[in-house]
Structures are given as structure tokens and as C-alpha cells.
């Protein structure tokens, strides 16, 4: 089944399709495991060892270790699952979101207070609008 090309036409956006879900299954299920306090403790004690218990790709593991959420999403991660990692880190949705935009957290928070990011020019790569 081919993916509707429109879904790849939105700048800076990865749509979590069934195909991406398949690619990221173990990455996301690893994230899910962090909802249990005992797993969070084990992960924090030795992240690499905990990750090695999961049938994840090396790229997925590296994205987690570096807390590179754009890379994790490129490898099939979904933001609601990745949230389990940054919540375990004591970080917020806004901090994680700002880290994906290349802005500092202060710049990002200021942008949100000023009304957020305008969709102008960010709707379609193909149509440049």
C-alpha cells in the first residue's frame, strides 16, 4: 500500500502512519515500559544495558541515548511514546518540543506567548504556501 504523497508534503512534520508505527514498534514499546517505576529505575541506572534488552535498531538506541527526538521520530518514534523518556528525565512537553525546533527553550516559550508559530509558508513544501 502506498502512502498518500501529501503526508510527506508538510514542512517539519512526520505523520505517524501504520508503516512508521511498524518501523518504530519496539522503540515505542520500550518507551511504554518506562511508565513502570521499576523500569525507570533500571533505565536510569544503565541506559545502554536497558536499551539492549529491546530488539531496537542501533539508530533508534542512539537517538534515545542522545535525546534526539527528531532522530527518534525519523526512526519510527511517536511523540506520545517518546514523552515517557522526557517525563522520566523530569523534562516537559514544551522543553522537548523546543529541542526539536532548534530554538532555545526561552525563545520557544516566548514564541508561544506571542501566539505561536504561524502556519504561513509551512503548509506545503510543493506549493510553497
Amino acid at each position, binding site marked *: 500500500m502506498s502512502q*498518500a504523497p*501529501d*503526508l510527506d508534503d*508538510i*514542512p*517539519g*512534520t*512526520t*505523520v*505517524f*502512519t*501504520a508503516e512508521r*508505527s511498524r518501523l518504530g*514498534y519496539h522503540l*515505542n*514499546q520500550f*518507551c*511504554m515500559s*518506562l*511508565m513502570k517505576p521499576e523500569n*525507570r529505575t533500571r533505565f536510569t541506572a544503565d541506559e545502554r544495558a536497558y536499551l539492549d534488552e529491546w530488539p531496537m535498531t542501533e539508530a533508534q538506541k542512539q537517538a534515545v541515548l542522545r535525546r534526539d*527526538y*527528531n532522530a527518534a*521520530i525519523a526512526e519510527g518514534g*511517536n*511523540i*506520545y*511514546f517518546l*514523552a*515517557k523518556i522526557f*517525563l*522520566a528525565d523530569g523534562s*516537559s*512537553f*514544551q522543553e*522537548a*518540543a*523546543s529541542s*526539536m*525546533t*532548534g530554538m532555545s527553550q526561552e525563545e*520557544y516559550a516566548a*514564541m*508561544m*506567548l506571542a*501566539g*505561536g*508559530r*504561524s*502556519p504561513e509558508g*509551512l*503548509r*506545503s513544501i510543493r506549493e510553497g504556501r
Partner: protein
Amino acid sequence: MARVTAGVATSHVPAIGAAIDRGRTREQYWAPVFAGYEWSKAWIADHTPDVVLLVYNDHASAFSLQMIPTFAIGCAESYPIADEGLGPRPVPVVEGHGGLACHLAEQLILDEFDMTVVNEMSVDHGLTVPLSLLFGQPERWPVRVVPLAVNVVQYPPPTGNRCYALGEAIRRAVASYPEDLDVQVWGTGGMSHQLQGMRAGLINAPFDNAFLEKMTAEPEALRQIPHIEYLREAGSEGIELVMWLVMRGALGAHPKELHRVYHVPASNTAVGHLVLEAGWPT
């Protein structure tokens, strides 16, 4: 007989729940958000329904990628509060209405909506933040809740048109329940927001305000919004707005708008809120 009397639409931003739980609602950042709900809290104190059918989405709490039901209805007697990674929110357990829920599940499936029946699940901020916004911090929630979880995490969510039609079927199914119950339908999530990638932080106030207006003025137009338009205009997470259309579909023709709120931002998100009085039967 049971009947749908009103509808509530509201965003369910987790940071709003955290602000309530940590007593920060009067801070400069949060006060304008909560001010918008003061009217609604007074209104619902006078119009407390017996049951809220609460349309929401689970955020990788009760449902992992192991199973992804498109429409799931909770038929349990109660629902524990999910631990989303920082411990469960300090809010009362959510009491269900198994009798109404089982009736709805049965009627909806016979009406050709293929519901997943859930007899055990925890509920996360998607369901509890709207309860906190309308009821504050009671010892016990003053209503019973029938949770209706919609998949909006893995693409594609159900279409807006399908959500609206489900709402219409819910109205019919509620009306055939013999007990005398006042039922409200709440649609939650949205408005515009994107939590991922370089476009994170997207807010589209013109789109959101048009959506709020069309909930009463032009619902037929909202039914036809394709997924790609939600994604482009309202952000990858703004597609949650399809859940508002379940509520709208359940309210019949020409519901009356009683209250409207729009505020930017709550964390990464535009907050939208409507209170609608049910219209004529359809």
C-alpha cells in the same frame, strides 16, 4: 427515557491538569485560561448531568501500539487514573455507568458502528483534565462517565464525517435507554497544536476560530474537512478536533451556543472551549 441535553468541547492539555494539581491556577500565565471556564463551572453546577459520555483520546497510557482501537467504549463500573510517568494525577477515581455503556455498545454495533468494548482500562489526562476544568477539585466526581476513546495517535484517525455520524447514532442510542438519565456528550482535544519536528509550536487562530464558529453555524462544512487539511492547518496533533464532531453529531439540529472561549497558549496548544445546549432531534 435517557436524553442528550448538552455538549461541551474543550482542550485537554496535560499542563492544565498539572497547573490545577499544583495550585498554580492564579498565576499570571494560567489565570486567563481558567477565567474562561468560570462561567462553565457555574453553569454545570446548575446543570449537572447524571452521566457524561466523554470522547477523548488515550496518549499511550491504556493503549500501547499492541492494540489500536479506532473507537473504544468503556463498559466498566470504574476507571483508575493512569500513571503517565510521574505518578497518577491526584484526582478521584472515575466512576462509570456500566448499564448505559453496555446499552450504547450494543446499539451502536447494531447501528453499524463497530465499537471495541473495553471492560478494564486506566484513564489519562485526555479524560481527567476536562473533568477538572468543569468540576474543579471535588472529593468525588459529581457525574458518572462513559469513556469513548478515539484513536488519533496512529494515522489515520476516523474521518470527521464518521465521528459526526457516530455522534448521531449515540443520540439515538441514548434515547432508547429506559432509565431517566440526563446525559451530556463532551468532545475533547485540540485546538491547533503540533508537538513534534521543526514545525512544533504551530498555532492557527483563524482556523480555530472558524472551527468554533462552524460548530453551530455550519457543522456540515466541518464534516467534510479532510485529514490533510487538519494536518496542514491545525498541526499534526490538531487533528484531535475530529473528536469534537462526535459531540456535535450527538446534539441534533441547531444546538444553541451558550459559551465560547479561545486562548493561546497553554504550553504548546491553543485552548478552545464551547458549551452547547442540545438542539432538535434528528
